[in-house]
């Protein structure tokens, strides 16, 4: 794990390198990345792994992708970082041709203020691809080696760059959240899921009336990685599951909701049609670009503090990383607002403002942690713990024990089943402890943030369904003067507020993909 204090230094290093090559101002925190593979090496690589498109026109577009005109496709959009094919350990002559082609292309890109990262794949030799990368002035190299060999290759690339005196970035696409968490890369890049919602029955899974839609989401993952190292950019890598425009919008939006970025990944067919200016391909890009612009126009949302009176303690070094991840994922799925607390940072200050704490990931709390949690519960809080807390029931999934002014819930299983815990939290948490409730959102995830104690409250809504979400009701604890709904490609709309006691209720008539409701106090 890298301390938060190191990220500014890394970013400065990157800026310095960019200045040396006349590259765009700003470091990776301002980059909006896109996969931009092509050229003869990409064709050769795809031929080898059997993923070369069958359509000859698409293959041709791929081969010609580093002709200057493709840079024009991005004109006017926020995209400012290209991930280009750099090395895959192919035939030396093909690699050399690729380096010459991409080198020239990268110079043109950088003149337009666009950063360029070279993608390198498993099997590539740093001795052969690092020197030309330095010569071409690439802003960095990104190891996209998949689960095998990524770490080793990353280390080799870093050594080669260091030996050559280059400060170019070395980035890696981590295969798991734990790898991304532990990575010292200047950008936390992790393989995510293609976001969407499905009925369990459509997946052939028998369930019951209380079952929710299955939502594949990366929001929890971005939040986790941002909590691990505030200030370090988080990128989600996920490849298209289908060519539907809404899916691309959702990818970009849901990464941005929690302050991350999706590595835009247009599929081959789309890129080929885009290059030949096919109207539907252009329209698809315009919609995506509008979504990216929306994110850029609301960049301040990224600095909002997560809203929540529940804290979820995550132990990055714990014995059950999957359970740790699932507590975050499934609590979000149940629309429970929470704040992430990493175990090493669990202290009195981290608990400020919280009313409940899910500490099931502390498989064995230390005496200090136990005292802290006991004191939290004793003062009226709710602590949800695993069996190591003691006094777990043999018959019931959990027992609820009063402790001074508060209570402790102790689960029997270790680790407690995240699905059960997330469901039970809805019973254990009062409406006030939830703080924000959303209704009629079977395929929508809600993420709330706040701009400070007396600042605005922001409730972002992300629709995972292929159909618009309608008639959503939001109920927020507190009194607010005005509320606005912001959506990409649409003017902000003021919402009517209904106040009942300490609650403010408002309705969102329709949500296409992404919306932000900003409530002013």
């Amino acid at each position, binding site marked *: 794990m890298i301390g938060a204090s190191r990220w500014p230094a890394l970013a400065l290093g990157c800026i310095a390198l960019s200045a040396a090559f006349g590259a765009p101002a700003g470091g990776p925190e301002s980059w909006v990345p896109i996969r931009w593979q092509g050229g003869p090496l990409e064709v050769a690589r795809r031929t080898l792994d059997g993923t070369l498109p069958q359509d000859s026109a698409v293959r041709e577009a791929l081969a010609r992708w580093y002709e200057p005109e493709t840079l024009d496709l991005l004109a006017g959009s926020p995209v400012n970082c290209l991930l280009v094919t750099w090395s895959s350990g192919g035939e030396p002559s093909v690699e050399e041709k690729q380096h010459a082609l991409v080198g020239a292309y990268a110079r043109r890109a950088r003149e337009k203020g666009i950063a360029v990262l070279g993608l390198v794949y498993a099997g590539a030799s740093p001795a052969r691809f690092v020197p030309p990368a330095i010569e071409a002035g690439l802003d960095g190299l990104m190891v996209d080696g998949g689960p095998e060999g990524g770490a080793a290759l990353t280390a080799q690339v870093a050594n080669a760059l260091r030996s050559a005196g280059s400060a170019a970035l070395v980035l890696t696409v981590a295969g798991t959240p734990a790898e991304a968490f532990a990575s010292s890369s200047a950008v936390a890049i992790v393989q995510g899921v293609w976001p969407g919602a499905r009925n369990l029955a*459509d997946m052939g899974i*028998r369930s019951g009336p209380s079952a929710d839609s299955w939502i594949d989401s990366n929001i929890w993952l971005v939040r986790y990685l941002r909590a691990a190292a505030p200030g370090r950019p988080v990128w989600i890598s996920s490849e298209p599951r289908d060519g539907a425009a809404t899916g691309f919008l959702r990818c970009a939006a849901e990464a941005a909701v929690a302050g991350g970025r999706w590595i835009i990944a247009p599929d081959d067919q789309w890129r080929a049609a885009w290059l030949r200016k096919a109207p539907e391909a252009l329209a698809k890009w315009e919609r995506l670009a509008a979504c990216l612009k929306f994110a850029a126009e609301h960049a301040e949302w990224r600095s909002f503090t997560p809203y929540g009176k529940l804290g979820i303690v995550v132990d990055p070094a714990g014995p059950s990383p999957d359970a740790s991840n699932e507590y975050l994922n499934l609590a979000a799925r149940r629309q429970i607002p929470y704040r992430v607390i990493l175990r090493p940072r669990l202290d009195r200050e981290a608990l400020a403002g919280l009313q409940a704490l899910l500490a099931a990931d502390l498989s064995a709390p230390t005496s200090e942690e136990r005292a802290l949690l006991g004191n939290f519960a004793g003062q009226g809080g709710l602590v949800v713990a695993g069996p190591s807390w003691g006094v777990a029931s043999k018959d019931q999934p959990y027992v609820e024990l009063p402790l001074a002014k508060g209570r402790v819930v102790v689960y029997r299983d270790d680790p407690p089943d995240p699905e059960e815990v997330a469901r039970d939290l809805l019973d254990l948490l009062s409406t006030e402890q939830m703080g924000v409730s959303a209704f009629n959102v079977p*395929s929508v995830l809600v993420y709330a943030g706040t701009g400070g104690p007396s600042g605005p409250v922001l409730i972002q809504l992300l629709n995972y369904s292929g159909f618009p979400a309608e008639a959503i009701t939001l109920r927020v604890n507190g009194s607010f003067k005005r509320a606005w709904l912001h959506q990409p490609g649409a003017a902000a709309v003021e919402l009517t507020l209904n106040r009942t006691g300490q609650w403010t209720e408002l309705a969102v008539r329709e949500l296409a993909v992404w919306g932000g409701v900003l409530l002013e106090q």
Partner: protein
Amino acid sequence: MQTTTGNFSRRDWLAVSGLAAGVLAAGRAQAAAAAPVAPVAVAKVPSYDEDLVARFETMFDQIGGLGGLVRDKTVAMKLNLTGGGRYEGYTAGQTHWVHPRVVGALTAVFGKLGARRVRILESAGRREGIPLEDKLLSGGWDVNAIRNAAPVVEFEDTNGLGLSKSYSTLQVRTAPMIFSAFTLNRSYEDCDFFVSVGKMKNHEEMGITMSMKNLFGITPALLYGSRETVFHYGRVQPPSGVPAELDPKSNRYEGWRLPRLITDICGARPIDLAVLDGIESCVGGEGPWCLGSKPCKPQLLLVGRNCVCTDAVGVATMGYNPRAGRNEAPFRVYKDPKGHPPEQLIPPGETHQYAENIMLLAESVGMGSADLSRIEVRGVPVKEAMFDFEAFWKGQMRA
């Protein structure tokens, strides 16, 4: 069902003889023949955008009028809601909940008829203190529109005590099969006119939902515990202080238990008016969590004073035989044959399960007749109204 052609199979015989044996054993054959009947109004309604107030006014007139029954009275409506999942692109009210416009229109009509109060009931909350309105909001309902549809409209979650301080225990007035009484939220006793607003749809365990099955949800889970554990399978007995099962050693199979248990519930809290919302619905199960289920548009609305007659006519408009045996559609069900002990699948080796025909059970205790030849259908004849659920489920017709 095949009858006298010589193709009558062993399973058919078993289905009929099993039911007949039960009926005879209870000595209720005469009761079945003399079960009461009441007219049922059937309407073809293309969509929820129709003037449903006018529709219901017409249908209420067709069944003899309700003014004298509800004027200055408390009308309680038990809604048929259920899980909050969705079929992609549909609202819950379109497919597996009753639709809010149906509820709003009924509320308005009862208000126009002079009801002193309309009380909207359903068991929904996972704990006490959560208003029913939250459940309705979770379906995207315009709660205020319903609240404003009549002079006094109240909402109550009946999964526990709700707005009361104590429960009511209601005795089963018909011959009890599983329970002789139920302890319920007081609003099921404190009403003058009780309406079951059911969805016309299939059900994974029961074959059909309709108005009688809708009453399963009046049992307060916050008192009894999990409905699945206590009622579906009878794995545990109800907690002390509430009426116990008559015979805790009786058959635990849900296809046997549930229809009997729900007949008992309907005997404890008789339905004064049955309403079936089949304007849109789903086939193959009671909601999107059921494997193989899908949305459909039968465009049907039914009302009747007798819940058995109304459900029987409703089942007929779904293309089923309301007197079908337990190995025939819709009572031949496909929930999870592998998940049940083989001895529960009668005859052994079936690839499907069975549910008893709840209408015949209710008929056998004198609740109402499921005999179409005895029931007067007003409005659209069954043949003209029919939407064949089985054919649609099998992909043999379009919506």
